């Protein structure tokens, strides 16, 4: 049996399908909250897996720790997206017709296609004008104010409200397109930037990075610098905490955007947005040859660690030999004082760096505590000089050009749903036509959405009113 386009469209736009898929979305989303979400290395996932071994077999088999990125979720949502498109298309055609009818009636024009009357009332003995006077009075008693022109009496909702539901549904379609495009093309990563140094916005700079396959890294790459670091920044009467001043620079070093970055005050440039994530300390070293000439510089990022004796976890550096092969590993800690058993997370006035130098096979070469400008000497005459210790800022850098589109779609959806639900869609049109024995009043009542009275109530009120008038006439 051939499947026609019409039957596919009818199936996709079925309200039952939409409601069923929404029900599935709700139940699946609920189920997803019962299991920690994330990769295998996510601490909450690992803890749960260890304590629910039997369940973990099933959960990991169906990929439920990534519940919202698996086929069990994405396929039904793709079907919901298709259903929304079909619904939006169907509603648009209907809404456009209604818009045309309502606009025509408000403008005093006949609608482009005739509208079947809902009822007809005979008003013998009354002229057209008298009939409309009576109708206006009866409708007024129902609380309905109407407008009148010539032989018509009418009341309509704003024509634009008829387009609100399609607007809402098309906005949802737009969202459903923008969201996956955004996911595929965004990059989101954590990068450590020492004060006074520049880091390129490129994959190699990021410690943690998620980049979609469609993400295009800017060429030449932008660079990110931390020009200043304030351990405490008070603004608006509130201490905003450790606050770096971050700059985004072009490849030639020109500042494109710069500001202090703290929670709810990110730095933006184009599609790039930079948030503060954390901070630590950075020890910068220069590797010198036996003659004292600088061969290379390296910076070790050192994080605070309450469980470590020194108060910092070792920052690792690898130094290469002249052929570029890793030669030695250097673990750097920066001892910090404690106050009330808590590590004081501030740069000491006189910082020192404790080095533990090992060969690539793990054998200890030496350990030493250095002050700035002091050096660790290797057997071959090279030395590793500590240039200085400063702060570093860990920044969350997101590049997502679809965010403005997402915002636009959300705002349109909000406008659409508000107008669709809160605005009415209704039409009341009475036309009076003189006949041989009186007047015939034809009424068109469409209460598509909203309206304090139903079509039946309006018709009943008018019939009752005209009925009373007929009785008066017959008594007379």
């Amino acid at each position, binding site marked *: 049996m051939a499947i026609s386009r019409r039957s596919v469209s009818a199936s996709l736009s079925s309200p039952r399908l939409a409601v069923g898929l929404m029900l599935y979305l709700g139940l699946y989303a609920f189920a997803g909250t019962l299991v920690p979400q994330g990769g295998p290395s996510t601490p909450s996932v690992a803890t749960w897996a260890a304590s629910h071994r039997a369940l973990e077999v099933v959960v990991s088999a169906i990929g439920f720790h990534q519940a919202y990125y698996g086929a069990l979720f994405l396929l039904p949502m793709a079907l919901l997206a298709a259903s929304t498109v079909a619904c939006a298309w169907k509603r648009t055609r209907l809404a456009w017709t209604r818009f045309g009818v309502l606009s025509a009636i408000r403008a005093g024009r006949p609608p482009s296609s005739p509208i079947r009357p809902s009822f007809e009332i005979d008003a013998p003995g009354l002229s057209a004008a008298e009939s409309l006077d009576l109708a206006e009075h009866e409708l007024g008693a129902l609380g309905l104010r109407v407008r009148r022109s010539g032989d018509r009496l009418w009341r309509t909702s704003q024509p634009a409200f008829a387009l609100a539901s399609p607007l809402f549904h098309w906005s949802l379609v737009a969202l459903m397109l923008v969201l996956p495009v955004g996911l595929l093309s965004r990059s989101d990563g954590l990068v450590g930037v020492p004060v006074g140094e520049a880091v390129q916005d490129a994959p190699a700079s990021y410690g943690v990075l998620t980049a979609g396959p469609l993400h295009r890294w800017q060429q030449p790459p932008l660079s990110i610098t931390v020009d200043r670091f304030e351990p405490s920044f008070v603004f608006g009467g509130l201490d905003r905490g450790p606050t770096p001043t971050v700059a985004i620079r072009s490849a030639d070093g020109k500042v494109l955007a710069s500001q202090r970055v703290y*929670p709810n005050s990110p730095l933006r440039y184009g599609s790039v947005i930079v948030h503060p994530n954390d901070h630590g300390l950075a020890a910068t070293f220069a590797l010198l040859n036996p003659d004292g000439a600088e061969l290379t510089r390296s910076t070790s990022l050192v994080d605070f660690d309450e469980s470590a004796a020194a108060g910092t976890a070792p920052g690792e550096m690898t130094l290469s030999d002249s052929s570029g092969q890793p030669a030695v590993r250097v673990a750097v800690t920066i001892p910090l004082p404690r106050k009330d058993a808590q590590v004081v997370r501030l740069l000491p006035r006189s910082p020192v760096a404790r080095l533990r130098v090992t060969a690539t096979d793990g054998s200890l070469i030496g350990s030493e505590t250095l002050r700035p400008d002091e050096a660790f000497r290797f057997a071959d005459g090279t030395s590793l000089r500590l240039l200085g210790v400063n702060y570093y800022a860990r920044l969350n850098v997101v590049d997502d050009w679809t965010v403005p589109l997402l915002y636009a779609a959300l705002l349109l959806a909000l406008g659409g749903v508000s107008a669709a639900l*809160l605005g009415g869609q209704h039409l009341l049109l009475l036309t009076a036509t003189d006949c041989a024995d009186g007047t015939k009043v034809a009424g068109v009542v469409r209460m598509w959405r909203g309206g304090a009275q139903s079509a039946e109530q309006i018709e009943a009120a008018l019939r009752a009113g005209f009925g009373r008038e007929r009785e008066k006439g017959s008594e007379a």
Partner: protein
Amino acid sequence: MSEVVLMWAAVTLYTLGTILVVFGAVFKADRLLSAALWVSLAGLVPHGVAIGLRWVAVHHGPYLGFYEVVSSYAFASVVAFGILAWIRPQLRLLGVVIMPVAVLMLGGAMLTPKAPLGITPKLASYWLTIHVTFAKLSYSSFIAAFALALVFLVRERRAAAGIPSEGMLSRLPDQSVLDDLTYRFVAVGFVFLSVMIVAGAIWANEAWGRYWNWDPIETWSLISWVVYAGYLHTRLTLGWRGRRAARYAVLALPIMLFTLIGVPLAYHSIHGAYLTGVN
């Protein structure tokens, strides 16, 4: 100290309002129902002043900590009662449903620690006010819908059992009016809920660089939105009216309540700090 005294005054007035509305319903006394309404609305005065005093003292609205948050939802419940009674005086009877909820909420909040939670840098944004305000407005609308739907079902059940509608129940508007009002309150609440979610997503992107992270509160907000979207869909496209629609509106409110108050207690969530103070 004065804030606590004012809150207990509000609890007392709400409790008195609850007693009056129950007696008014049972003994079919219009005067008691009127008194219940006015006493309950009077409770909004000390309650509102207490919220205001605390707002000035802690430099933020009723957004943080179980005490503040649940107290403000109790306030929203009584406001919903007031609005229903203003729309149609016969709806004062719905206080039988709403006022006990308000009393339990505020009374429960009064028994929890009241130490203020300070605004942290992560919460210091005007989006917090927008997001929370629309959460309260949506809740207020949905509890009104819940009360209307519940009363609809009670009357429907009595009619089905052949019990003639008499007394207070008979003075309520027609079933069709209750049904229509339920839909309207759900519609308004849905718009407010949508604004709450959109404001939350925009704020999350501003604060964290991620507008959606499937955090439990975000997920449950979506579940609530889908549940009420389902109500609207079944009504507007499948023509569900009357008993089916009323049952839906009644069953939907607990989901919304769980989202607003239960999720931070049941799940570990970055959002949970606003209720528990623990991140």
